[in-house]
């Protein structure tokens, strides 16, 4: 029963990872950019929420409503100033530029907020620990369950937006072939900027969920980036529903690992990620060709 409990808790944790990863997956799918500042931006959102909710005493929901447009605007600015320019300069530059940005963000947060860990748990009252009891003595936290449901809704919404709306069609066209999309009248720059803004909305929601269900500090960003990335890769890059699956697999693996060893939580997550990567490469026959490079040129 304990095992079942850990799997259920891992599933709930996976909801948070899916929420965190969907922005990374979305941006990679649309712009072929992996934003290394992704985790740090989620932590920025968490700090903005904390700032409004704790010292200023706003209701967390009201704070979220204020932070969402601000972060969307930040996404638009980020695209105009950093991503657009770096993407033009080659495949490596976005990585280098966003890594520099992450370092700036983390250290700025440290400068302004210090090393204290923060949480929004106190601002949301009993929701932080309320739970439903399932038969067999398994407790399902209400907040994690809400996050999971919310993640599924958000992924479904993104999917529907891409499939059925005019903006979705433009985004798909621009990511498929930006030059041709421009020829048929799509303002690719504006479309990508909008996609960045949408990404930042998902990042804000992930940051809110991080702030409410756990603690964070200025240097939490890189860890969140790694979790998000693992979820994306486990689920298969560029697929939104795969991201949900990846998040759940990661969450379950971490919870099971924590049962084995106190340090097992993170180790199991990373090891699962690498094992799945290895399995996928074996399946595609990539490894065999790797070891035979001595005799024949790689295809």
């Amino acid at each position: 029963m304990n095992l079942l409990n850990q799997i259920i808790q891992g599933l709930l944790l996976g909801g948070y990872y899916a929420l965190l990863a969907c922005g990374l997956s979305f941006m990679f799918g649309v712009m072929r950019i992996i934003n290394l500042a992704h985790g740090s931006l989620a932590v920025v959102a968490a700090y903005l929420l904390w700032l409004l909710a704790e010292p200023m005493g706003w209701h967390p929901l009201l704070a979220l409503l204020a932070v969402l447009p601000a972060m969307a605007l930040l996404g638009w600015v980020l695209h105009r100033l950093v991503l657009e320019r770096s993407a033009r300069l080659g495949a490596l530059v976005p990585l280098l530029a966003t890594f520099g940005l992450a370092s700036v963000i983390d250290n700025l947060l440290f400068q302004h907020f210090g090393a204290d860990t923060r949480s929004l748990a106190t601002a949301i009252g009993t929701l932080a620990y309320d739970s439903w009891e399932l038969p067999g003595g398994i407790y399902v936290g209400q907040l994690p369950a809400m996050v999971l449901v919310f993640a599924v809704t958000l992924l479904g919404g993104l999917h529907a937006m891409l499939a059925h709306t005019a903006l979705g069609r433009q985004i798909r066209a621009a990511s498929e072939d930006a030059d041709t999309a421009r020829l048929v009248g799509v303002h690719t720059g504006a479309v990508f900027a909008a996609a960045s803004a949408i990404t930042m909305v998902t990042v804000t929601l992930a940051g809110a969920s991080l702030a409410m269900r756990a603690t964070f500090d200025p240097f939490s960003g890189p860890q969140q980036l790694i979790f998000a990335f693992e979820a994306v890769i486990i689920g298969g890059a560029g697929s939104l529903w795969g991201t949900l699956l990846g998040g759940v697999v990661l969450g379950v693996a971490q919870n099971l690992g924590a049962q084995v060893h106190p340090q097992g939580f993170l180790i199991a997550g990373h090891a699962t990620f690498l094992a799945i990567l290895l399995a996928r490469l074996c399946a595609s026959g990539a490894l065999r060709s790797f070891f035979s490079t001595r005799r024949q040129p790689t295809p």
Partner: protein
Amino acid sequence: MSLPMSSPSPAPVGQPAWTIQRWTRTSAVCAGAAVPLLAVLFLGPLWLQAGTVDRLTTLFIYVILAVMWNALAGYAGLVSIGHQAFFGLGAYAMVRLADAGLGPYPALLLGAVLVALVAVPLAAFMLRLQGGEFAIGMWVVAALAHLCVNLDSLVQGETGTSMIALQQYAAGERRAYTYWAALAAMAGLCGAVFLLLRSKVGTAAQAIRDNETAAISIGVRVVAVKRLVFVLSAFGCALAGGLWLATSISFQPKTYFSVQWTAYMIFMVLVGGIGTMEGPILGALLFFAVETWWGGQGVAYLIGLGAVAMLFALFLPKGIWGAVQQRWDLHLLSAGYRVRAREAQSSPADSTRRCV
């Protein structure tokens, strides 16, 4: 590579109209000057103050890190955010081997060799990843290596341990030995990268850097070249980690496996000039100067480093040395090929065509 398809003017029969030049006068002088420079540096501990010797050791380690990261990013087109894995593992291997009874300096070298051996199977699947996937994939590897090292009871988790074996030397001796080890490692690794780049592998690596798909199409064995560079870069960073341990004595996993090391490497390479031989060395010198002057500023200094790296990536992606090369066609350590027409050797500026 863009060899001219037709010669600029009709050539005498049996003689091509162009020659291939591998050294310019400047680069020959510069490579020659490296020898007396190294000799002077070798004598450093005999006449320099202890503090200066320590700082120079640090500089040598920075040069190693920059050159190793650049070999991978600048020539094999692989940005790694996880090179702290090799840095930390190098130090850890040294701690482990010294604990097993090996002398600290042999442990340093053997540790780096072991890390290079670990890098071979690691390359087998990490190199299958592209771009950002490789970048963060390496970061995951570094995080996993950090966690696994923490499990070792010798290291005592984040508490860390010390290189007690280094106590067998007096402080002055240890300082000089570590200095010489760092100098030798720097000279050896820079020389290895330089020779590698001038060899067939280097030509292949530079073809990959310029256009991977085109390189594959002309038969460059991309994976084999990348693997060689990856393993060399792992070895160099492991050596740097061991050297850092030899200077600081204490081993705390958190410090050695910090992503900050990779941030420093990126800063040095981006500012100096990615994909050039001279750039990372220049970058290391600049980083060293910046650290000496502003390192005490704490968090503002780190914000500045990140911001400068970002601005260089966005506005001067070839770095300072890349801009210098473009402006003045200056090569101090030329690893490339220059094609020049026979007839027009009097006006090299018009007829010289750089290939790499």
